[in-house]
């Protein structure tokens, strides 16, 4: 018995140092700190509202009553994290996906236009970059337009795009995707121009000694060399593609989607619903970036990146 019991105190002696050895420790500390700040902020933000409500009702409220009210109100100024989690649980797990209250349904609607927009945008970005790299005059003539396209507030241009496309009979998921694509082609173009011109002089001279065609140089040198740049751009692009899809749902009176959910929440002062939709969007964005990162690792490994 004693022999078995001996290692135990040793393991318990440095549990903290063990936790902090990995990434789990720092991550947990940051999460806990954020939660603590959030709770304090929720109490402060909601305090006067709750206190006034008690006062209006003529109910004598203790400190504890008000405190509980700040963290459990139906329409708080700033909902507490557990309220958002409860709302997420309710709308994701407890609600059937066919219901209009299901966040999974809304998430899917936004995700589908995000992915379509991402595909269109990434492809457009790559094609533009290839064109710019091969036709020098395009660099001067096209680049200013590409850059200025991103200075236009998307909120201003989104309704225009929806209306114009709607007037020529294009409705549904495509207009939203085009707004996504409008935002996300940009980092892909910039990254790919950099990537396609990344091969050094020797690597390019080598192709010249083979009298390689422009197409061969593109496929066998420029494109493979640009893959790391492409993935760095795609990570940015997929996240802003989601932003684009959500923004596209705001001014168009969309019936479904995370943007529609945000809008509905703000109409009716359902702050918890707004925050739940925001969380869903953040989780979706993180998942999309993680998927791109995973594909990146697989592709770069197949291309001989150092492990």
């Amino acid at each position, binding site marked *: 018995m004693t022999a078995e019991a001996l290692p135990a105190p040793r393991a318990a002696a440095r549990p903290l140092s063990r936790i902090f050895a990995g990434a789990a420790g720092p991550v947990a500390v940051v999460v806990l700190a954020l939660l603590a700040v959030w709770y304090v902020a929720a109490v402060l933000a909601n305090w006067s509202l709750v206190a006034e409500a008690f006062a209006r009702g003529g109910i004598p409220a203790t400190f504890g009553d008000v405190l509980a009210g700040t963290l459990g109100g139906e329409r708080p100024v700033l909902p507490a994290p557990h309220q958002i989690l409860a709302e997420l649980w309710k709308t994701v797990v407890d609600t059937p996906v066919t219901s209009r209250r299901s966040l999974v349904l809304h998430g899917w609607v936004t995700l589908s236009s995000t992915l379509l927009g991402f595909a269109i945008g990434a492809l457009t970005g790559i094609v533009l970059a290839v064109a710019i790299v091969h036709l020098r005059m395009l660099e001067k003539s096209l680049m200013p337009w590409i850059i200025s396209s991103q200075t236009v507030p998307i909120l201003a241009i989104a309704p225009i795009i929806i209306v114009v496309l709607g007037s020529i009979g294009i409705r549904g998921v495509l207009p939203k995707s085009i707004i996504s694509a409008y935002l996300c082609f940009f980092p892909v173009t910039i990254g790919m121009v950099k990537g396609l011109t990344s091969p050094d002089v*020797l*690597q390019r*001279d*080598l*192709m*010249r*000694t*083979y*009298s*390689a*065609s422009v197409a*061969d140089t593109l496929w*066998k*040198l420029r494109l*493979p*060399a640009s*893959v790391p740049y492409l993935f760095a751009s795609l990570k940015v692009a997929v996240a802003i593609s989601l932003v684009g899809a959500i923004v596209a749902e705001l001014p168009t009176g969309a019936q479904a989607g995370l943007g529609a959910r945000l809008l509905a929440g703000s109409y009716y002062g359902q702050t918890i619903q707004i925050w739940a939709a925001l969380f869903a969007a953040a989780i979706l964005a993180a998942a999309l970036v993680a998927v791109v990162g995973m594909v990146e690792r697989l592709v770069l490994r197949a*291309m*001989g990146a*150092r492990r």
Partner: protein
Amino acid sequence: MRIEGSAGTGGMAATSNGVQVIDIAGLTLTFDTADGPVYALSNVDLTISEGEFVSFIGPSGCGKTTLLRVIADLERPTGGHIRVNGVSPEEARLRRDYGYVFQSPALYPWRTIEKNVMLPLEIFGLPKAERRERARTFLELVNLKGFERKFPWQLSGGMQQRASIARALSFDPRLLLMDEPFGALDEIVRDHLNEQLLRLWGKTGKTVLFVTHSIPEAVFLSTKIVVMSPRPGRIIDVIDCDLPRERTLDIRETPAFLAIAHRVRDGLRAGHSYED
């Protein structure tokens, strides 16, 4: 496109038979830079016969690399006459007459060693089976058997440069242009590769143009040494290096070797004297 035939069958070309591979007369190249013209090559005359191993030696900036790049059609001369295998450098390049080995291996990091060697063969449109067969043959020739599936970073610098030599030989060009291929390697690896290169040259019978700034390397490898001087780049001496073709590293201690090395050094010094 000359891709027929394979390594080891070049017995005919192992001895010079008088065919002019390089014919240069009055060649000049002036770069226009913001600081005024730079005279990279000035009035260069040179002929090289088939099967020779010619070294270009000189201090940095003497135009030896530029001369090699002109022959490879990587630079355009501003004046003079140049013929490579009887045609203009551009035609020779389009005909894929030469393989070029750069100062650094310039392997594509996303390709395995085998795929790097197959790169020119893919571009020339050879069938897959033949590409693989040639890659195998030439990697064996440079003693890299067993490394086909490795990526470049998994090999040492010397092995990478050997892979790049296999790549240059893989399409059996008539001419091998080498621009300080062993310059970045340490002395021991360099000696070893020099021996291997000499053996390779004996086996394939290619005409080799070899840029270096090492006197022992030039004397050890060459049948002819072209001594160049800088500003403007010009040829100040062409030294025949008539040591026996079968050479081992020991030859560097012999009086004949030292006499040639001495003459090369004298030439280099003469080229430098105006800078005193």
